[in-house]
């Protein structure tokens, strides 16, 4: 597709909640200031585990009754959607709600609610007649997006996109495509996760030998460090307001950046293990779509979850794609916040977006001794790097071999 002002898509608003910040300013300051959001929490059946939980005010935009009826993922989404709209300078009164689309990436949805219901069932001596009538509306896969639609009265398309931990990027990509197709005129897109509410995800990673731990919980997620031992499960969300460039320019919107390129592909080899060659292919194809070379990229934000093989594979892929670029810096975010699953890609993009204006590249966290297999030139480890930033490439990969790469560039009038 040849891009013009009708098909160029820009980011004009950001709403987020992360374990270390409840808006972009707080989140950015935490990343630049090396502030961790990882704490410890009692997880049902498992004891105290490192976790990334958010502390936004659920009642800021939602009635208590609707929170009780809905889900944590819905609540996170509603908070982020309101914050994003407010940040964009738009209001519910000023937008055409029929022509607004809500597209949210999710890794999974329904585990938390199902698990809680089964727990209650056992408390109730397996009396199925006490099974909640809320179970189905809480667990249908479109729930997080549907709750936003209900809360904001947005009557355009509202659904989720299941794409494991590549979902945050893919929510944004899908939103952009819907704008380019003319299906909608305004988009709220990103990713969300409520998964710290379910012991099953922690237990699954533990059984897989991929649950991060450390005597200091803030250090439990140590991507690229030689001693890394797995993932810290986190919740969160990031939702962006997306508009066609012509619409954003017409209303004089603040423009955070322009979506320049993307690519999504599949490994087709393993349920959980990543494939370096497909990751290389995904990054290369995204660069081609953006019509730029590796040397044009200022920041690569790694997916880097802190697992042994995941980090190793991705670093090899990035080393290959960016072999000829000495001006590309590499960072990763999960050492600060853990792995926010469906929200990860969207949150990590948000954390880097301010680089276009503050010209700083935030560091990785907790790399004390780099794994030689993860060694990358220009890896940011320590103080932020001061550098003019024009292009960010954001990696997000997920189980069942789904890969997503999103490239955002600075908007220049």
């Amino acid at each position, binding site marked *: 597709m040849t891009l013009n002002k009708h098909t160029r898509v820009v980011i004009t608003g950001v709403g987020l909640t992360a374990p270390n910040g409840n808006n972009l300013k707080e989140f950015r300051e935490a990343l630049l200031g090396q502030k961790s959001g990882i704490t410890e929490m009692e997880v049902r059946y498992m004891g105290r585990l490192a976790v990334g939980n958010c502390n936004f005010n659920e009642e800021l935009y939602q009635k*208590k*009754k609707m929170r*009780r*009826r809905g889900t944590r993922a819905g609540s996170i989404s509603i908070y982020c959607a309101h914050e994003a709209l407010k940040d964009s300078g738009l209001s519910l009164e000023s937008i055409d709600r029929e022509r607004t689309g809500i597209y949210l990436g999710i890794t999974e949805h329904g585990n938390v609610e199902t698990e809680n219901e089964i727990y209650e069932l056992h408390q*109730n001596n397996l009396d199925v007649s006490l099974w*909640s*009538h809320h179970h189905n509306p809480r667990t249908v896969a479109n729930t997080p997006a549907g709750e936003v639609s209900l809360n904001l009265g947005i009557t355009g398309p509202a659904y989720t996109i299941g794409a494991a931990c590549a979902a945050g990027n893919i929510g944004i990509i899908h939103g952009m495509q819907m704008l380019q197709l003319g299906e909608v005129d305004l988009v709220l897109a990103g990713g969300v996760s409520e998964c710290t509410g379910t012991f099953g995800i922690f237990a699954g990673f533990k059984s897989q030998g991929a649950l991060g731990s450390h005597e200091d919980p803030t250090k439990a997620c140590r991507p690229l460090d030689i001693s890394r031992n797995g993932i810290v499960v986190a919740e969160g969300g990031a939702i962006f307001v997306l508009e066609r460039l012509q619409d954003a320019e017409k209303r004089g919107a603040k423009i955070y950046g322009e979506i320049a390129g993307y690519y999504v592909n599949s490994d087709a080899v393993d349920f959980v293990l990543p494939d370096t060659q497909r990751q290389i292919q995904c990054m290369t194809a995204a660069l081609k779509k953006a019509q730029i070379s590796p040397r044009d990229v200022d920041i690569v934000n790694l997916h880097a979850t802190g697992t042994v093989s995941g980090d190793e594979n991705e670093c090899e892929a990035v080393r290959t794609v960016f072999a000829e670029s000495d001006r590309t810096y590499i960072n990763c975010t999960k050492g600060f916040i853990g792995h926010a699953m469906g929200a990860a890609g969207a949150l990590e993009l948000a954390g880097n977006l301010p680089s276009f204006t503050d010209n700083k590249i935030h560091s990785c966290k907790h790399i004390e001794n780099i794994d030689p297999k993860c060694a990358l030139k220009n890896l940011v480890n320590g103080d932020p790097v001061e550098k003019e930033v024009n292009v960010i490439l954001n990696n997000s990969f997920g189980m069942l071999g789904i890969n997503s790469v999103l490239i955002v560039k600075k908007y220049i009038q």
Partner: protein
Amino acid sequence: MDYNAVRQKIIDIIAEIAVDEDLSNIDDEVRLRDQLDLDSMDFLDIVMELKKRYKIEVPQEDYPKLATMKSCIEYLGPKFS
């Protein structure tokens, strides 16, 4: 169980479901839905709570009997005792 005791049990259940509502001035003669922000899912929650807390079954055909506080008390009062 007297009228006020039954009323209080019903208020306690509604308070848990209609968490945003002020329940201090409920008119017992007026339909609950006309004075509180209650919808059909809330009524299902009320029925579920009656079963969970007091093992009181309210069959679907009796749901209209939960329309006002007064009708609730008249219908549920004998079941509580």
